[in-house]
């Protein structure tokens, strides 16, 4: 039975991935991409990786999907507001052939198949490495949390996580850089939209917030944690934004900066203080480990949520 479900899920996932690539219309590809993300999340659950499933659903599929959808507006003619301009430019650009020369396709296809076969064989023959489950488990009591994934994320490999929080901040900066910062400075207030939507959003906001907080706290014991919570909190910002409340114009600049950097900053300063007291970077005093991790997670979640909101706000302006 398991095999059947797994096989079905796997085949579906693969099919959707194919569709993503081959769907004739871009919009369709994006929608399929959504579905692909959901299938993948199911697959994670099947593999017992609930944390990953939440992260996948929230970030890779949810957040990314929203961004994709939003960018469809730019790319496809259907959603385009300034159709005229696009047609004008379209006429200037020579119409590109959408297909490749058959030799190119053949060569690539052949290469791809070879690659696939070899990689399948390689994966098939992966020897039992044993993983680190045993050590992780053995050290779990000292980590200050009960959920091993959280322990890894915020204690064993806190350094990676710290860098990762940094990456999000960098991503935000990068997106600013790509757009030029000037436009960010002058956000126009979106006109009031569908009142129903606004109401719904207002209702959802506290729910999302609470659910996020729960995930955050629950991360100590089971699936959940900073990233998952952050996405939910970020969703608040996104929803508010969609509803016309451009949150980032409301929050003062200094505050924004603090919001965005507090996770990274606190984590880092914590690390430095630990080092100053003779420990290693990110070495928690065992007694306070649980608490400190919670604080770090909270702040990180705030930062990430702020960053995600900012990204969305900036991209969809």
């Amino acid at each position, binding site marked *: 039975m398991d095999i059947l479900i797994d096989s079905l899920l796997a085949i579906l996932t693969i099919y959707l991935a194919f569709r993503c690539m081959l769907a004739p219309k871009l919009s369709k590809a994006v929608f399929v991409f959504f579905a692909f993300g959901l299938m993948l999340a199911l697959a994670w659950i099947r593999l017992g*990786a609930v944390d990953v499933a939440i992260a996948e659903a929230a970030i890779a599929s949810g957040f990314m999907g929203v961004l994709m959808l939003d960018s469809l507006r730019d790319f496809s003619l259907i959603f385009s507001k300034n159709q005229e301009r696009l047609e004008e430019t379209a006429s200037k650009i020579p119409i590109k052939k959408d297909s490749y020369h058959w030799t190119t396709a053949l060569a690539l296809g052949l290469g791809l198949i070879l690659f696939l076969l070899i990689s399948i064989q390689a994966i098939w023959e992966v020897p039992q490495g044993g993983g680190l489950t045993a050590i992780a488990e053995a050290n779990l009591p000292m980590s200050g949390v009960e959920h091993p994934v959280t322990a890894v994320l915020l204690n064993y490999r806190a350094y990676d996580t710290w860098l990762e929080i940094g990456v999000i901040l960098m991503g935000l900066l990068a997106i600013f850089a790509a757009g030029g910062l000037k436009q960010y400075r002058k956000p126009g207030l979106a006109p009031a939209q569908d009142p129903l939507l606004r109401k719904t959003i207002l209702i959802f906001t506290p729910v999302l917030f609470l659910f996020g907080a729960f995930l955050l706290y629950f991360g100590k014991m089971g699936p959940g944690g900073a990233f998952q919570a952050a996405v939910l909190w970020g969703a608040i910002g996104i929803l508010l934004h969609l509803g016309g409340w451009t949150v980032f114009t409301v929050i003062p600049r200094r505050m924004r900066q603090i919001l965005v950097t507090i996770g990274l900053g606190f984590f880092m300063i914590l690390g430095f203080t630990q080092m100053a007291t003779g420990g290693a970077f990110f070495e928690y005093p065992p007694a306070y480990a649980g608490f400190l991790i919670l604080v770090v997670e909270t702040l990180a979640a705030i930062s990430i949520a702020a960053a995600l909101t900012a990204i969305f706000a900036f991209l969809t302006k």
Partner: protein
Amino acid sequence: MKIGTYEIYSLTSAILFAIGLGGVFLAKHFLRKIIATIIMGAGVFLCFVSFAKRDALTFADPIPHALVITGIVVAVTAAAFALSLARRIHKLTGEDTFGNEK
């Protein structure tokens, strides 16, 4: 040979990676290329997690899970950045595919 969850998903991971790889080279539209990279990533992450499943003792190996979460965030950030670049390019030039720029 036993076919179990691990085997299925690890094979799927290889196929997803291949699809992503092919897509990123063959797809023309920026958006599709970006999606392809995400699919590639999905393949890799699936591979990781399937190992976790295989090596599970009392619980699944947490390290790959943590790695994958980190990986997803990083990959998504990169993809979002790519998306912003693509949109910006489109806005500035109206192009949505790579040309032969120097």
